[in-house]
């Protein structure tokens, strides 16, 4: 861990209690983010990306348990903090943009009321007293920063009066209004049409660059990761399977899952529609033993069914959780 490490998630487990037992969603999840870094978190729907983020902010539902792990932010383990300390982290420390902006905005309050509440609370967490006028001004500024026209009128409007794109911008504005060190963007713009999604992503990129905010960008779209991130984590069924600097990951995908993912991206030139990865994500109630990917893995070995692989280092900042890259699997590796 270097000095510039902002967030360090170590060995995180999250379980949900449901009918029939326990859903072991996250198992040994780990990731880290440095100051000013843009980190991507990629994986298919249901692999636990949002759960990880909610665990970081401690906003998981009541049925969730965190039996294992640490989430260290600026030197303190979030999992052990009390409400007062937590409220200092949420907002000014770590902030989040939710996947569905319509659901994330309270329908019976105006945009202004919600935005000003967020601003007021981040100010008080920092120990400042903020008069109403100033909070209002900051709200106006936040909306201007996300390129929304006529912010005064918007502040008086209700979410139902805004378009999907506007709501997404508002929710970005809200997240950034707290001046966070780390921004978590959970699949921003996926509920919108592609051109607007592109605008939204560009907006996030420029804002983040301007303010030197670190970002965890969650997405299931590889193209987005390639363009916007410095480093990537590839996640499958509750833990990271591969991580590397972005260009390196695309140049040398090492984990069989990552390789499969990259093959599934349809290419416009030569190739046509690609093949998917056979099989489906595991049942978290009865997850596969050992490496959770082994039922779908074309290179599965006997050991993969028994033991969960730990990270093997391929290169500088490039690690894979796969027995193919450990001593045992050396001979099985593809060139």
């Amino acid at each position: 861990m270097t000095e510039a490490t902002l967030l360090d998630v170590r060995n995180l487990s999250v379980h949900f209690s449901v009918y029939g037992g326990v859903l072991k969603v996250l198992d040994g999840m780990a990731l880290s983010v440095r100051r000013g870094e843009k980190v991507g978190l990629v994986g298919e729907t249901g692999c636990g990306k949002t759960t990880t983020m909610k665990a970081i902010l401690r906003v998981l539902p009541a049925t969730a348990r965190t039996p294992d792990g640490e989430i260290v932010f600026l030197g303190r383990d979030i999992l052990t903090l009390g409400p007062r300390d937590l409220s200092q982290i949420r907002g000014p420390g770590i902030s989040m943009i939710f996947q569905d902006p319509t659901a994330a905005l309270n329908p019976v309050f105006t945009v202004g009321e919600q935005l000003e509440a967020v601003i007021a609370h981040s100010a008080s967490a920092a120990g400042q007293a903020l008069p109403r006028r100033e909070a209002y001004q900051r709200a106006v500024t936040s909306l201007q920063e996300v390129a929304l026209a006529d912010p005064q009128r918007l502040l008086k409007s209700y979410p139902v009066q805004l378009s999907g794109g506007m709501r997404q911008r508002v929710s970005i504005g809200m997240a950034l209004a707290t001046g966070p060190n780390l921004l978590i963007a959970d699949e921003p713009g996926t509920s919108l049409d592609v051109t607007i999604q592109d605008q939204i992503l560009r907006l996030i990129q420029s804002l983040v660059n301007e303010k030197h905010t670190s970002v965890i960008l969650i997405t299931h779209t590889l193209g987005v990761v390639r363009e916007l991130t410095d480093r990537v984590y590839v996640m499958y069924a509750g833990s990271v399977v591969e991580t590397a600097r972005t260009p390196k990951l695309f140049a040398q995908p090492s984990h069989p899952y990552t390789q499969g993912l990259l093959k599934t991206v349809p290419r416009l030139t030569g190739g046509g529609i690609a093949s998917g990865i056979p099989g489906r994500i595991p049942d978290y109630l009865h997850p596969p033993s050992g490496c959770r990917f082994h039922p779908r893995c074309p290179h599965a070995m006997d050991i993969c069914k028994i033991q969960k692989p730990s990270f093997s280092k391929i290169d500088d900042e490039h690690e894979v959780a796969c027995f193919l890259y450990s001593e045992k699997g050396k001979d099985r590796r593809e060139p």
Partner: protein
Amino acid sequence: MSEIEVTARRIRELERAFRRENLGRSWYKFSRNPLSVVGLVLVVTVILLAVFAPYVTPFPKHAGAFTDFRHAKTPPGVMYLFGTDQIGRDILTRIVFGLRSSLLMAVLVLAIVVPPGVFLGLLAGYFRGTWVDVVIMRVTDIFLAVPPLILALAVASVLQPNLWNGMLAVSLMWWPWYTRLVYGLSSQLRNEYFVAAAEVNGVSLWHVLFREILPNTVSSVLTKMSLDVAWVIIIGSMLSFVGLGVQPPEPSLGSMVADGARYLPDQWWIAVFPSLAIVVVVMGFNLLGDGIRDMFASEQV
């Protein structure tokens, strides 16, 4: 055995296994709240008591024309567990028989009310926006616009006061709720793909209504029905409280409370025990109804 027969048998086995799994899951969801099980126990007990009333009560004759002034107004004791009323009749026995008529009324009212109410709701929801919808729902609204109890009282007072007319009165005020409930569900469901698929296949209207839309409303209707038993019992007791239900000498919980009100506070048991009986029965059905609702609710992670 031919291939088709083998496949058919396999499908049946799978269905059976699926149903068993569903049953298990339903019971899990139902029993997760111990209070629901309490409700189930209460309801079953009450039903058994009501059905076997003449055999389980100490003084079955007291439920009819019977007087015993020597033992009138006896406080609760060993012989008369809940005491006797002003004519000397055992209150415990009368409560059980009163439960009988309450349950009977509830069952019959629901039997009368649910089929037409649901049917009208299905129709109105399916033909939403057309004159069918308008007519049905406006009539429903008229009935709903009347303060519910008033309508029941008005009808019951115009006719001869007895159990059947009381039931008729309550039924008249009840059916619109089912129509409205099913209307909402039906008009949502008719836009679902499986309905469009059926229509494209050219099935009859009845098929769409009863075999596509109706099964999807069953959970809401059943939940409402179980909670409604409790409400009908309450409304029924209110009606008999003012003398518009079962007529004396037959016992009914409401009229027992009304009689007993006159003897407060000295012979408090005459009013209090029937009141408690009402509370317990209604609570049982409510708990059961809540459990049924939990059973149908989907879980979220």
